[in-house]
């Protein structure tokens, strides 16, 4: 478990400094762990697992500045996953809502699952509905992989507006996913 923590943390911290390859590696590993975690946590809602994986990945990304270097990354990730899982239970308003998903950090990274299922919500569609100021920077930078400077030139926005657009757009995306439930 300590090994998973160290490996994930190294990738994540490099990602905080703007290393996109490390960050990608982090998200891929996290997605596998989340899948394993959620398939054990909510075996009765298998169809919702991939949606939750995506929602938690987006939440982790949007909150990545709240990770404090002196804390274990696993505890931080686990708190976010639990928060989204509670939200899921609440929105279902099923008997599950009485179950606080109490489990410990050690268990959180225990299982990895490499078989993604089909997500039911299409984040791509939600993306298309965002206002241009947010959608265009995300399309150019995040989907086509252009730099901030190139994106600014194409869209006619300033570089800081491009960064703000991506940031707000991804937060708005998370809000829209919440709105689906």
């Amino acid at each position, binding site marked *: 478990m300590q090994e998973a923590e160290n490996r994930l943390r190294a990738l994540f911290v490099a*990602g*905080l*400094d*703007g*290393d*996109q*390859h490390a*960050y*990608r590696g982090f*998200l*891929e590993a996290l*997605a596998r762990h989340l899948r394993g975690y959620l398939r054990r946590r909510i075996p009765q809602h298998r169809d919702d697992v*991939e949606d939750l*994986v*995506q929602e938690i*990945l*987006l*939440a982790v*990304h*949007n*909150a*990545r*500045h*709240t*990770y*404090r270097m002196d*804390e274990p990354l696993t*505890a*931080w990730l*686990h*708190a*976010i996953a*639990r*928060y989204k899982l509670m*939200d899921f239970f609440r929105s279902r308003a099923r008997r599950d809502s009485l179950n606080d998903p109490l489990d410990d950090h050690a268990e959180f990274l225990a299982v990895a699952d490499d078989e*993604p299922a089909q*997500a039911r919500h*299409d*984040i*791509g569609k939600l*993306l298309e509905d965002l206002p241009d100021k947010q959608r265009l920077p*995300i399309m150019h*930078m*995040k*989907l086509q*992989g*252009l*730099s*901030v400077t190139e994106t600014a030139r194409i869209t006619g926005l300033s570089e800081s507006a491009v*960064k703000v657009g*991506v940031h707000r757009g*991804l*937060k708005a995306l*998370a*809000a829209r996913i*919440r709105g689906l439930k």
Partner: protein
Amino acid sequence: MKTDDLIGLLSNQVTRVDRGAVARRFTKALLLGALGSVVLMSIVFGVRPDLSIVARTPVFWAKLAYPLVIAIGALTVVTRLGHPGARGGQAWLLVGLPFVAVWLAGAVVLEAAAPGERLPTLLGHTWRTCPFNIVLLSAPTFPAVFWAMKSLAPTQPRRAGAVAGLLASAIATVAYCLHCPEMSPAFWSVWYAIGMILPAGIGAWLGPKLLRW
């Protein structure tokens, strides 16, 4: 969108995280909010005319320290609650201690007072309005604090909302101290406390709505 595509979207051209952004946003929010409360206080209630005289008495500073220490404690707790996995920890003591200290001081004052003087000491001259005045002065700080909190990621939104509300009202109370003529800890221990706790209750109510992420 497949999970793999989402991962590509999130990681592509990922920018370096600005570690000072949260602190800057809180500084801006708290300064503007506090300024708003002071301006509102001076327009609606007016600065007490003898401020320069009472400012030389220790009891005035003790009164100011009461909400100020609560504000510092609440700020510490609320920013911790905004970081997933962190708990309020010992900063809760900083929130609770001023209440306890003023309650004790109030009890001592009442104990020493003549029986017929106790109720007038407790009620002062402004007990009817004091809590609501503090709530009114929280109007600028409350949205400011919640706006700042939106830059964090509270996983317990109700608790975070309550402490955010307390932070807003504690700052407002500091501003109110510049007007309020009451100088007895017995008075502060009840009416200031109610004034600070009401916005905390509103914060607890609104937290799950406003702080979702």
